[in-house]
């Protein structure tokens, strides 16, 4: 079985190189001392990593992306948790229709979502770009929130809250004292999934940008079209480590992959 023994390491080596290699090159290129983006990097310096923090538009769009990722995910959870609870614990007429409506934003390409919001919400109702971005990101995260929270409600036996109600607790009290503590892991996982999805999202935000209002990835694309220095590589590397760090911690403390 010589052939088989070689097959596994060679296949995995090639696939992992193809998937991870480009990312390592970006990390290496961001330590370059040269003026332009190149690999192998010319010399070693931290100047491009330092430069990332001095570009004003990066700072503004980073705050915008953070606001959208955190605010949008919280809003999606506030809408999504009661909906998931109703879908899994109640006999609800039209439950399938509601489920389809709530998870629809995942099926339609993001660029179309962004464009239709611009045309039919922003322009006719004079909605600000920031609010439109917030609505778009909330709609985008809602399907993930409902899916992950529903899955974790599905794993929780429903008779314990029925017992709480029988023992005199109010329905609401039973939800907050019995259900919520038990689906905490699922909610945190939904939050992280929503955060990463929103933060990395480009097509939805593409049309929803105005003077000084842009999400970070859209800003990075605009920057790299004009300037060809390693600062976008440095920023990419920093953001990648941020995402990986968050997901790693989530896996460590929550067992993230059980929910997603």
């Amino acid at each position, binding site marked *: 079985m010589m052939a088989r023994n070689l*097959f596994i390491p060679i*296949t*995995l080596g090639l*696939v*992992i190189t*193809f*998937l*991870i290699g*480009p*990312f390592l*090159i*970006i990390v290496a290129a961001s330590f370059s001392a040269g003026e332009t983006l*190149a*690999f192998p990097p010319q010399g070693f310096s931290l100047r491009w990593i330092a430069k990332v923090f001095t570009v004003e538009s990066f700072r503004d769009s980073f705050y915008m992306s953070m606001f959208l990722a955190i605010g949008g995910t919280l809003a999606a959870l506030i*809408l999504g948790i*009661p*909906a998931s*609870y*109703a*879908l899994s*614990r*109640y*006999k*609800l007429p039209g439950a399938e229709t*509601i489920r389809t*409506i*709530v998870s*629809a934003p995942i099926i339609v*390409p*993001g*660029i*179309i*979502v962004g*464009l*239709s*919001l611009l*045309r*039919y919400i922003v322009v006719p109702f004079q909605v600000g770009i920031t609010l439109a971005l917030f*609505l*778009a990101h*909330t*709609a985008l995260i*809602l399907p993930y929130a*409902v899916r992950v929270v529903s899955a974790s409600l599905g794993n929780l036996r*429903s008779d314990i809250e029925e017992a709480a109600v029988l023992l005199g607790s109010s*329905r609401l009290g039973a939800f907050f004292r019995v259900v919520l503590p038990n689906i905490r892991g699922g909610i945190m996982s939904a939050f992280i999934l929503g955060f*990463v999805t929103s933060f*990395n999202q*480009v*097509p939805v935000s*593409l049309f929803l940008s105005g003077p000084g209002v842009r999400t970070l*990835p859209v800003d*990075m*694309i605009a920057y790299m079209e004009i300037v060809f220095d390693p600062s976008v*590589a440095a920023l*990419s590397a920093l*953001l*990648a480590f941020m*995402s990986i760090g968050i*997901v790693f911690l989530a896996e460590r403390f929550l067992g993230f992959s059980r929910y997603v």
Partner: protein
Amino acid sequence: MFQNRAEALALALPAALFAAAVFIAPVVILLSDGFRAPGGGWTISAYTEFFSSSLNQAVFLRTLKLGVLVTIVAAVIGYAAAFAIVSLEPGKKGKVTGLIVLPLMISPVARTYAWIVILGRTGIVNQAFQALGISEAPLRILFSETAIFIGLLQLFLPLMIISLISALENMPKDAIPAARVLGANWFQVFWKVILPLTKEGVVIGGTLVFTGCLTAYITPAILGGSKVLMLETLLYQQVTVSNNFVAASVIALILIVMSFAANILLKRVATARNKTMRNTKGTAQ
């Protein structure tokens, strides 16, 4: 199960109304734009006009071609990789799966940007080609279909591998040794045993990869430039350069129809293969 209908609606309706108002209504209106006749009434002339342009035809065919090619190549590599991963011992399996999933956490902008360093005029590939004497002048790899293909494959391959890993793990453990003992060669084992038993995984992975390719914006925008367009980048150009919202609506519907068609077609293919299998078994008996 609680029975209170009013309570249930009060819990579920805010989310449904939000999605309907912010998402479904605007998208439906946008899609209807493509069918509106200038003087009122409905028409499909925007669609005939769209497809009569040779540039649009080329973009449509390129999108279809790249989507199909990336999906097929991802399935081939995906099978090899997933097969290798499930035959690892449990500890290693988790670590390798983690490495495969890792790129999904990284921003697609960062992942696509890396290919500029690799495929550019002074990139690694051109440096290597010139050092080895394969080519004299730097090749133009960036801003081509090849570059978009590589970028899309790297972006979506993990989705295919993950779908196939779970499909292979759910396969009966002794199916392959049994087929081997009965004299099947590796090609037959794949075609007649592994593929039919993992078809659900291929359908899920294939739909994810194909739909991903159709709706990817960053990859064709960065690696294709403004000349080698796909439907998504064409849509963006129609809006920002030509201000043509009717064409944008047409492209939007084409994209949505293509994703649904791919999903249905893949499911069909999977069930049709199963029927032929059963029929052949019938005649053999």
